């Protein structure tokens, strides 16, 4: 897991831009506080990115943005979330295994934030596939 930036002093990790704020807290006396701040800021960062993406999509296609969702949209979203949950769970369990094998807590934090990002990417990717190629029950 070296690619996840195992050096706590480095600000150039894979998710460095999301983690800038909690990095300033790395000297906090409570490691748990630092870890929680890391995950919270990561989640907020992803949420902000999603809101920005929705705004851009709405501007690009205003008619589609105004269309209310129907049963097919709900079905596609549910199936895509199922895939995303599998990926998220897999990364979390791999991280737990990594911790048991000596992975640093810093790398574990990076891996967990990365899990959220990858999970969301899988969700959007699955939605595209289902919309493009169909989603038979």
């Amino acid at each position: 897991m070296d690619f996840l930036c195992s050096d706590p002093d480095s600000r150039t990790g894979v998710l460095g831009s999301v983690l800038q704020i909690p990095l300033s807290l790395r000297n906090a006396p409570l490691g748990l506080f630092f870890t929680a701040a890391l995950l919270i800021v990561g989640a907020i960062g992803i949420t902000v990115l999603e809101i920005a993406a929705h705004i851009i999509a709405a501007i690009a296609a205003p008619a589609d943005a105004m269309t209310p969702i129907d049963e097919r949209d709900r079905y596609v979203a549910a199936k895509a979330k199922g895939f995303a949950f599998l990926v998220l769970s897999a990364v979390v369990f791999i991280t737990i295994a990594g911790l048991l094998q000596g992975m640093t807590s810093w790398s574990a934090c990076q891996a967990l934030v990365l899990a959220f990002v990858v999970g969301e990417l899988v969700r959007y990717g699955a939605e595209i596939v289902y919309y493009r190629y169909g989603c038979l029950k």
Partner: protein
Amino acid sequence: MTRPVANQIRRFRFERDEMTQQELADRIGVTRQTVNAIELGKYSPSLEVAFRIALVFGVPLEEVFEYTGERP
């Protein structure tokens, strides 16, 4: 991906003065994209939507949809 349910929506729309997908979608309460997906066999609608489609065309459900999969 198998498509166990065939449908005659395109034909019924044609016979109803070329009813557009948007018109049908508005009457059954789904999006035009969903009507298109149903027509192309990319999505199997719920029973409720299937009945609404049959009601719009004024025909029994089995005239619009046909099960072509394996017999249970």
